[in-house]
């Protein structure tokens, strides 16, 4: 019988992981049927046997139970090796697997939770990352459904063994709900939405302490769901009745604003393939040579209008999860601000555009130099500064948006936002990310209103740096080429 994990395309090289699993399976196949030998395998034999059993489970659904029994019988490492191979498969080629193999993979993922396999939490994360934002294809919705039902059905053991997995899942499903709620009257999606809402609400209402671990991006995501009655109620309680979450330490959402979100969460909404391509772009591609890469990236990940919502995740990933070394910053490799400028161009829908800008400025609003990272602020300021004078409308719309956020983002916590934005500007100048804000304040092409707002916001910041410094300021001489 011809067994394979992957739908191999014409002229596509074999995947080395698949080859090694298949080889183990072919050699050991006669030993995969009972009665199983009782001899103790060497380390190498153990790995090969694990490979063979894994391959059997994935390719022979009708014999999966036999293979699983075999696995439980031989395991001596807490399933560590077995689970690590599963993670490799998911990260390296989940998308290419046959549908029957994907079904087996999910069922064996349940099993790893059931036995508390060493590393099952990483397997959950790997699977969550394969769910693509803005993708309404059947396969993607199927994976959403399978994962959210897995978390609900294994709720108690997850809570006991690895509660952070539930926090990761919450981040993912809050974000996916924003996509799924933009579609209505599609039966399949309605059902999925219902389960996703149940999961998220259960998490927030019953395990609020786990939700708090996400930090400020929790609120960024919840904000997009306020039109759903259950989340509207959660918002009301967050603002007016914080004690209803029965969390002693929680008194006000200010606490959540103050917690920077770890890059682990932001990575959850970028597939490993997107991650590797974006990181490649930002590490190896020289400014001026990026055009072809941008075309390929767009074709692969942003081909349909629904995919637009991914742009926000990408902006957040670049700001918070990809921090280049000084060497790269000083080289002629394309910089983060330029890639974000290019991505902003794709945000055609008003809500996507606003969400992207919010993602770009989100850490500005609550910036605290003790807890926050200046690298999260850097792309926004450089994008505004480098867009002068050729892409003035970019500078203008970003700065305008920042002042709109200042005035409207949270009326009850305006002082906090004011402090955040103002300290963000201060640290960017103090650390020399920009030499001064003069380039903005004395820019003839910038609206007088915005310049005045800047001066009002930062009365103590010296805007007028000496003319010589201005000349030596490389920021003024560079023209961006993201457009």
């Amino acid at each position, binding site marked *: 019988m011809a067994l394979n994990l992957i739908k191999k395309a014409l*002229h596509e090289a074999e995947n080395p992981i698949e080859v090694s699993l298949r080889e183990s399976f072919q050699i050991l196949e006669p030993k995969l049927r009972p009665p199983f030998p009782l001899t103790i395998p060497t380390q190498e034999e153990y790995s090969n046997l694990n490979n063979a059993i894994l391959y059997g489970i994935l390719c022979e659904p009708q014999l999966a139970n036999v293979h699983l029994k075999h696995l439980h019988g031989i395991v001596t490492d807490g399933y560590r090796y077995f689970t690590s191979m599963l993670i490799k498969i998911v990260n390296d080629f989940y998308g290419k697997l046959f549908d029957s193999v994907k079904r087996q993979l999910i069922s064996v993922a349940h099993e790893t939770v059931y036995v508390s396999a060493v590393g099952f939490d990483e397997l959950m994360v790997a699977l969550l990352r394969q769910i693509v934002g803005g993708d309404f294809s059947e396969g993607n919705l199927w994976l959403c459904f399978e994962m959210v039902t897995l978390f609900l059905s294994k709720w108690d053991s997850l809570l006991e063994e690895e509660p952070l997995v539930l926090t990761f899942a919450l981040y993912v499903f809050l974000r996916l709900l924003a996509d799924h709620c933009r579609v209505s009257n599609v039966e399949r999606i309605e059902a999925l939405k219902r389960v996703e809402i149940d999961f998220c609400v259960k998490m927030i209402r019953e395990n609020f302490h786990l939700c708090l671990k996400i930090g400020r991006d929790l609120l960024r995501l919840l904000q997009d769901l306020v039109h759903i009655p259950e989340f509207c109620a959660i918002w009301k309680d967050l603002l007016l009745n914080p004690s209803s979450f029965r969390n002693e330490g929680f008194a006000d959402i200010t606490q959540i604003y103050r917690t920077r979100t770890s890059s682990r969460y932001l990575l959850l909404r970028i597939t490993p393939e997107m991650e590797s*391509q974006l990181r490649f772009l930002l590490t190896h591609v020289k400014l001026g040579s990026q055009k072809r890469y941008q075309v390929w990236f767009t074709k692969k990940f942003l081909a349909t209008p629904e995919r637009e919502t991914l742009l926000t995740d990408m902006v957040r990933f670049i700001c918070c999860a990809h921090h280049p070394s000084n060497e790269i910053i000083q080289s002629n490799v394309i910089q983060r601000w330029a890639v974000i400028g290019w991505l902003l161009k794709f945000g055609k829908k008003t809500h996507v555009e606003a969400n992207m800008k919010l993602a770009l400025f989100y850490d500005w609003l609550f910036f605290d130099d003790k807890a926050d990272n200046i690298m999260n602020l850097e792309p926004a300021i450089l994008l505004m500064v480098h867009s002068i004078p050729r892409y003035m409308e970019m500078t203008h719309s970003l700065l305008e948006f920042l002042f709109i956020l200042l005035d409207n983002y949270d009326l009850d916590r305006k002082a906090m936002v004011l402090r955040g934005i103002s300290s963000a500007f201060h640290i960017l100048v103090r650390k020399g990310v920009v030499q001064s804000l003069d380039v903005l304040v004395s820019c003839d092409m910038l609206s007088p209103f915005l310049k005045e707002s800047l001066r009002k916001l930062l009365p103590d910041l010296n805007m007028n740096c000496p003319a010589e410094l201005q000349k030596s300021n490389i920021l003024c001489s560079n023209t961006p080429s993201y457009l």
Partner: protein
Amino acid sequence: MDPEETLQSLKDIVPAAQNNINTKFIVLDKGRVTLEGQHKTCLALVADETAAVHFQLWGDECDAFEPGDIILLANGIFSYNRNNLVLRAGKRGKVEKVGEFTMTFVETPNMSEIHWVPDSINSKKYVQEAVISPHSRIFPPMH
């Protein structure tokens, strides 16, 4: 032996009537598919970190590869085909997609846009005489 260890850089390939080229490159652009007799054929611009070259796709290869694909060529041939200097797998060579996107490249020099002449000492060997064009004249650079 790891085939990647013996890979040649595109800047070092020399026209010869031999299937002796093992290399890896990324597809930058693809032309229109045309029929040569009964077989489909299609010209592509491919490149690595050192040079670019025109690559001729043949038969089902024409549909199998897209811009952005990284290809491993084993036992390819760099020679004149209907007056065009192209790299191709030929009957004895093999092309395989091994990745996507994550490879850097240059578009100049283009080895197909060089005028080659037989070496004065060893007439079986070709040497570069002149650059016809720094870039591909068929697939202009994208800015």
